[in-house]
C-alpha cells in the first residue's frame, strides 16, 4: 500500500468538492448507517503474530485490517463483553463516562481529527457513542428493551471494525475533555476501547511491537544495554568535538543521587538525539551526581496505549531500578505520555516509592513538593529552577538563528498542568520566542496528530489531516514572525512533527527544549562555538558575550 499522503492540493480539492460536516453539509444517513471503510492510509498495520505471542495476548495470527475476514476467535463477542463488564466494575470513571453524556456537542469541534477529516465519527461525542451504543444494549434496561430507539446496538464484527478505526483516530490527547461540561475524559473511553480491541485480537503493530520490545529490553526501540551505552558514548565524543568538553555519564551506577530516565527515542531518533546531548551537557556543567540506566532505558510507555495492565508492567521498571541503584529520586526527560502515567498513575500503580526521598535539587536546594509522592521531577522544572536561581551561564544569542515557537505536548499541558516552566526555560535560552494563537496552546493545545502510538508511516494520510490544526497554528507564526523552529518537549512530537512540518510548513525544523539549552549553555573551559548541536551554523555573535568574558 502507498504510504504517501495526498498532496495538499488534492486535500483542498476534496474539501471543496465533497460535502463535509465542516462546511455545514449534513449526511442524509444516520451515523449508525454509515459503514466503516478501510482505504490506503487510514489504518495501521496489524500486530505481527510473534509480537502477540510474546505478549501473551489473544488470537495471534497474520491478518490485515483491510481483509474482509478478520479471523476473529470463536466467541470473541463474549470475551469482549465480559471484558467490558469487568471494566465497568473496575473503573468507576468508565461507568460514569458511559452514563452521563447528554450529547450537548461541546466537544464535537474540538478534536483535531474531526477538524482534519470532517468525519462525524471523529466528533468525540460520536466516537464515545460507538462504545456507549454497545454498553446500552448490553448493560442498561432501556437499551435492552428499546434497542435502536435509545441508540443501542449489538456488538458485531462491523462494530468492532468501527472501534478499530476510530479508537485509532483518537490520540488520547484530551483536548475535548477540557470543553466537556461534565468532565468526561474521552481519552479514558478510548483507553478502554483499545483494551477491548486487544481482547478481540485487533491490535496494531506500531503499538504492540514497542510494548513487546520494552518488556524484553526495557525500551520501545529494543536497544540492548551495550548499544544504549555505545550510542551515548558516541554523543559524548560529538560533544567533545563541538565544545572541547568531555562529559562523563555513568550507567547503572549504584549510589548515584539521581536516576535520569528519558524516552529511548532520545538516544536513537533524529532530532531527539540532540536533546540528549543537551541533557548530558547540562548535567556535566552543574556537576550532577546522576546515572543513566540501560534497563530503565525508556521514559515512554506504549503500554498505556494498550491496557492498564501493560502500562503498569512497563512503568514498574522505573521504581525497580531506582530501588536497585539506591538513588534518592528520579529525574525525567522530555516525554509526553510518560508524564501522564507518572503524574496520574505511577504512585498508585507501582508505588508508594518510600525507599526514595522527597526530591531536592542538589544544586539549588529547591524542594520539588509536587513530586513528594512520585519522587520524580520533570527536567523542565529542574532546569527552570536552575535558571531562576542563577546557576547557569546562558548565551541566548547562540540560538539567534532560530525564531522559535512552543508546542505544548498534550500530556504535559493537560496531563500534568505544566505550562510555564518550559516557556521560562525557552525565553532564557533564545531571543525570539513567539506564541501560537490563543486556543491552540497551553491546556487548549492541539495534538501533533500522531500521539498515542500512531506515529507510523502507513498512517501518514490520517496523521497529516489530524495534525492540520497544529500545523495551521504554526503557519500563523511562521507567516507573522518568520518562525523556523518548533520546540517541543515530547519524543513522539520530535518524531512526528518533522513530517508534519515538511508537509504543511516546509522550512520549520523541530527542536527539543534541552537541545536549545545545550546550544546556549556556556560551559566552563569550553571552546568557542560557531555551530549548534546539529552542526548548523549559528549567526555570528559580533561582540564577546559578557558571560563569556566573566568566564575567561
Amino acid at each position, binding site marked *: 500500500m502507498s504510504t504517501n499522503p495526498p498532496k495538499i492540493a488534492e486535500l483542498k480539492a476534496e474539501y471543496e468538492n465533497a460535502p463535509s460536516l465542516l462546511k455545514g453539509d449534513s449526511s442524509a444517513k444516520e451515523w449508525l448507517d454509515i459503514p466503516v471503510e478501510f482505504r490506503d492510509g487510514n489504518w495501521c498495520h496489524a500486530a505481527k503474530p510473534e509480537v502477540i505471542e510474546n505478549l501473551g495476548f489473544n488470537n495471534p495470527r497474520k491478518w490485515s485490517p483491510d481483509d474482509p475476514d478478520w479471523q476473529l476467535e470463536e466467541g470473541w463477542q463474549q470475551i469482549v463483553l465480559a471484558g467490558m463488564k469487568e471494566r465497568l466494575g473496575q473503573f468507576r470513571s468508565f461507568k460514569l463516562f458511559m452514563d452521563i453524556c447528554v450529547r450537548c456537542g461541546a466537544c464535537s469541534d474540538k478534536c483535531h481529527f474531526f477538524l482534519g477529516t470532517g468525519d462525524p465519527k471523529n466528533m468525540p461525542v460520536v466516537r464515545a457513542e460507538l462504545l456507549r451504543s454497545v454498553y446500552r444494549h448490553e448493560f442498561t434496561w432501556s437499551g435492552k428493551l428499546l434497542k435502536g430507539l435509545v441508540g443501542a446496538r449489538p456488538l458485531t464484527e462491523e462494530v468492532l471494525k468501527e472501534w478499530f478505526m476510530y479508537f485509532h483516530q483518537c490520540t488520547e490527547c484530551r483536548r475535548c475533555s477540557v470543553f466537556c461540561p461534565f468532565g468526561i475524559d474521552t481519552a479514558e473511553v478510548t483507553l478502554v476501547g483499545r483494551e477491548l480491541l486487544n481482547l478481540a485480537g485487533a491490535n496494531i503493530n*506500531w503499538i504492540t511491537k*514497542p510494548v513487546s520490545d520494552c518488556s524484553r529490553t526495557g525500551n520501545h526501540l529494543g536497544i540492548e544495554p551495550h548499544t544504549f551505552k555505545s550510542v551515548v558514548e558516541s*554523543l559524548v565524543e560529538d560533544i567533545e568535538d563541538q565544545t572541547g568538553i568531555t562529559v562523563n555519564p555513568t550507567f547503572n551506577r549504584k549510589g548515584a543521587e539521581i536516576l535520569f530516565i528519558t524516552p529511548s*527515542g532520545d538516544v*536513537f531518533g*533524529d532530532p*531527539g538525539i540532540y536533546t540528549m546531548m543537551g541533557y548530558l551537557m547540562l548535567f556535566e556543567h552543574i556537576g550532577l551526581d546522576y546515572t543513566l540506566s540501560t534497563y530503565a532505558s525508556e521514559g515512554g510507555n506504549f503500554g498505556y496505549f494498550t491496557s492498564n495492565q501493560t502500562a503498569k508492567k512497563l512503568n514498574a521498571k522505573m521504581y525497580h531500578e531506582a530501588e536497585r541503584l539506591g538513588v534518592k529520586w528520579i529525574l525525567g526527560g522530555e516525554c509526553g505520555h510518560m508524564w501522564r502515567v507518572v503524574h496520574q498513575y505511577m504512585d498508585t500503580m507501582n508505588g508508594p516509592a518510600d525507599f526514595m526521598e522527597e526530591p531536592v535539587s542538589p544544586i539549588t536546594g529547591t524542594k520539588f513538593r509536587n513530586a513528594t509522592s512520585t519522587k520524580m521531577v520533570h527536567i523542565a522544572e529542574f532546569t527552570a529552577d536552575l535558571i531562576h536561581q542563577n546557576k547557569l551561564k546562558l548565551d541566548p544569542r547562540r540560538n539567534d538563528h532560530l525564531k522559535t515557537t512552543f508546542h505544548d505536548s498534550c500530556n504535559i499541558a493537560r496531563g500534568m498542568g505544566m505550562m510555564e516552566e518550559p516557556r521560562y526555560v525557552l525565553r532564557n535560552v533564545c531571543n525570539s520566542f513567539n506564541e501560537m494563537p490563543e486556543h491552540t496552546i497551553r491546556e487548549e493545545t492541539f495534538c501533533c496528530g500522531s500521539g498515542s502510538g500512531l506515529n507510523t508511516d502507513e498512517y501518514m494520510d490520517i496523521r497529516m489531516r489530524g495534525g492540520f490544526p497544529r500545523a495551521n497554528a504554526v503557519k500563523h507564526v511562521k507567516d507573522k514572525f518568520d518562525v523556523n523552529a518548533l520546540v517541543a518537549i515530547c519524543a513522539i512530537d520530535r518524531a512526528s512533527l518533522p513530517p508534519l512540518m515538511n508537509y504543511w510548513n516546509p522550512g520549520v525544523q523541530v527542536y527539543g527544549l534541552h537541545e536549545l539549552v545545550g546550544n546556549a549553555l556556556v560551559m566552563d573551559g569550553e571552546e568557542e562555538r560557531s555551530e549548534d548541536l546539529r552542526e548548523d551554523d549559528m549567526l555570528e555573535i559580533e561582540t564577546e558575550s559578557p558571560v563569556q568574558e566573566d568566564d575567561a
Partner: protein
Amino acid sequence: MSLDVNGTTIEVDENGYLLSLEDWSEEVAGKLAEDEEIEMNDQHWEIVNFLRDYYQEFQIAPAVKVLTKAIAKKNDIHKKEASVFLYELFPNGPGLQACKIAGLPKPTGCV
C-alpha cells in the same frame, strides 16, 4: 507478502522489510534495491555492509547520527558532506532504504 528471488520465495512484511534476517543474501539485497529503484554500486554496498556489521554487533540499525559519523570517518569527509552523500545514495533516507536493503528490521517507537 513475499519477494521472488531467482525462484525462491522470501517473506517480507507489509513495508517490504525482510521478516527474517537469515533470508538475506546479496541477491535478495539486489532485489530489495531494485524495488526501491536503486542501482547498487560499490558505495551502496559499503553502506549496506556497514549496516549489517553494526546490526551483528548491536542488534539494531544505527541511529542516523551514528551512521553519518561513521561514514564521515571512513571516507575522511565532514559529517554534513557524509549526510549529503548518504542521501544521494539513498534518496528516501538512509535510515529507511539502506536498512531495508541490508535486511534489517524497522525500529518502532518514538522514531
